[in-house]
């Protein structure tokens, strides 16, 4: 293969890595939107909190003398998911549930307020500056001829792919097979009717927030380890990207969120390959606007028919 196509392959791999984490965060947006039709603006902050908890747990375990990498990662994953879910649940309970049924701008403002609050709360308690973690997972596979261009897949990227894949599979099984998953789908179809049929919709809504937060925490762990840096403001741009991914794929649709995330990740990586990397956000949003023009309900979204 030529040097150029190898370079493209490398960018594709990088793009898919980032894209799969976008997909993880996007699911949180899409599930909440699918059920209660609101944009959970504080979702990006949950991702950021997930990253912080990961760093705290890793630092704590290392100082306790535990050095086995798999154990550290698994404990960090479990703790981050648990804590972030608690945050997700609490945010829903405090800022959104009392406002359900009002004008749809009201919960949005409340969510923006919550997002500002969480950003600053973490900033005040953990410091506003970057916190860096030395790389935990190093090494990788190299493909191609080392003489001209080498395509590398780092082990971290492999972990990201594997974890994302397993999580997505579990989530799909949960949504399609379990009783609670069925309730989730019913709520997305018609919240009022589901309530009438004797399903505790409050519980289902809380559950979607918990699932979304847990997935965001996984993304927080993965990206935190991948970049090795976190600060209180990473949540905003990641959340924005993930929301873009959710809208791109058709908001309310879980496969759509995954597809949107991957497309967005690859587009960004490809843009960064040819243009200065600052323009990748411009291209990402440009892509969103273009797709919405031709498919107003996203790639996999169902067109919504307004009825009187």
């Amino acid at each position, binding site marked *: 293969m030529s040097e150029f196509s190898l370079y493209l392959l490398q960018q594709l791999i990088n793009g898919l890595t980032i894209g799969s984490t976008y997909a993880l965060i996007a699911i949180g947006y899409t599930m909440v939107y699918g059920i209660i039709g609101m*944009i959970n603006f504080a979702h990006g902050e949950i991702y950021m909190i997930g990253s912080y908890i990961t760093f705290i747990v890793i630092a704590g375990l290392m100082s306790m003398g535990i050095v086995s990498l798999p154990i550290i990662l698994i404990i960090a994953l479990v703790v981050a998911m648990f804590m972030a879910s608690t945050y997700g649940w609490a945010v829903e309970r405090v800022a959104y549930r009392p406002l359900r049924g009002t004008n749809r*701008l009201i919960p949005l403002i409340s969510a923006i307020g919550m997002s500002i609050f969480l950003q*600053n709360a973490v900033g005040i308690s953990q410091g506003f500056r970057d916190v860096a973690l030395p790389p935990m997972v190093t090494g990788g596979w190299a493909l191609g001829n080392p003489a001209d261009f080498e395509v590398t897949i780092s082990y971290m990227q492999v972990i990201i792919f594997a974890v994302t894949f397993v999580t997505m599979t579990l989530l799909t099984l949960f949504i399609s097979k379990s009783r609670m998953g069925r309730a989730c789908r019913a709520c997305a179809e018609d919240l009022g009717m589901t309530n009438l049929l004797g399903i505790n919709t409050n519980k289902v809504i809380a559950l979607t927030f918990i699932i979304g937060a847990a997935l965001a925490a996984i993304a927080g762990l993965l990206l935190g380890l991948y970049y090795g840096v976190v600060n209180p403001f990473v949540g905003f741009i990641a959340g924005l990207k993930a929301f873009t991914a959710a809208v791109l794929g058709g908001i309310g649709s879980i496969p759509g969120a995954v597809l949107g995330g991957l497309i967005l990740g690859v587009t960004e990586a490809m843009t960064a390959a040819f243009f200065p990397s600052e323009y990748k*956000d411009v291209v990402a949003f440009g892509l969103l606007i273009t797709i919405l023009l031709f498919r107003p309900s996203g790639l996999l979204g169902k067109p919504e028919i307004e009825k009187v």
Partner: protein
Amino acid sequence: MTTNKFYNAIFAAGITLILACLMIGVKLDTSGTQLAVKGATTAQWTWIGGGIAIVFLSQLFTNQIDALFRMIPKPSISTMLPEEKKMATLKPWLIAGAIVIMVIWPFMVSRGSVDLATLTLIYIMLGLGLNIVVGLAGLLDLGFVAFYAVGAYTYALLSQYFGLSFWVCLPISAGMAALFGFVLGFPVLRLRGDYLAIVTLGFGEIIRILLNNWTEVTGGPSGISGIAKPTLFGLEFTRKAKGGEDAMTFHEYFNLDYSSSYKVIFLYLIAILLVCFVIYVINRLMRMPIGRAWEALREDEIACRSLGLNRTAIKLSAFTLGASTAGFAGAFFSARQGFISPESFIFIESAIILAIVVLGGMGSQYGIILAAIVMTILPELAREFSEYRMLLFGLLMVLMMRWRPDGLIPTKRPHLELKQQ
């Protein structure tokens, strides 16, 4: 019931403990290259314990606390105002009085408060502009700051490269922002509400990134400085006149001693003028068929279409007019600051403007003015706890939405009521 409450309270206390663990309990600490975790001090644990106790007790006694809160009457503006008929005759006098007070006021207070008032007036302008889009036409715009930026940069660039004066640039800035609004609005206004929100949000980011990276023209992250201040019919407010031999400054012309506060007061008066102009125009528009159509479209789109109203034209007009107001505010902003950079046009600004509109009560102009005052003055008052400023701001937004979801002064529509015989 009581046991249920007890479990609830224990549950809430447990959740609080978990949440507090991250925020206060542990702290990341970098020692060299290694990351370490520091536990909280005893005092901080006492705080956490106190917080948990408060949550536990408040959950246990929710009913009693609710009853207590219900005893405090909610302030209602409408009951405090005189009757409607009296109000109608009083209104012109009240408005005239308010304007007179606003014009005289800056001569008696400190320079800092006049400056703050000018900032408030900018936010009032922005709030009124966004109110057309969100409050009246019901289009959720999360990237309003983009038009503000367009207005600000239009003036800054025209003044820097072509030396045009503020008064010439003011309409050009508004027109430029309107053009951007039109170009963006034309394709995206077909989208459903929330998609529109994210597209406008994306547009806001695009503008900011472009301003940040187009270094040759916009100066990139370091921005543009030395933007010319507005002049009073050619009279400058500097110590020495810059514009040639026979140019005079304000204090020379009127034989006054030089004082820098003239400039501040002059800017404030311009802001008052602009705000009055914007309010007047919007008020007239609201009473025109187009204004009625905005509100009708917000209430029921399908009904509007079946009555033969052109949906795109109506939405586009609201979007464009809102944008031009932001352009107005932007041009004034860059004239006041004398320096602009993309840092001034981040998403949080859009969020603050949106919060002003929602907090004020969507569609209500008095409400927006009040909310703009609250939103700019409160952070200033909280300057002592500068670290906690944004934290409190976020918390306040959440609490206000719970306390008064209809805004500080909910809109009153003209309506007729049949009196009972």
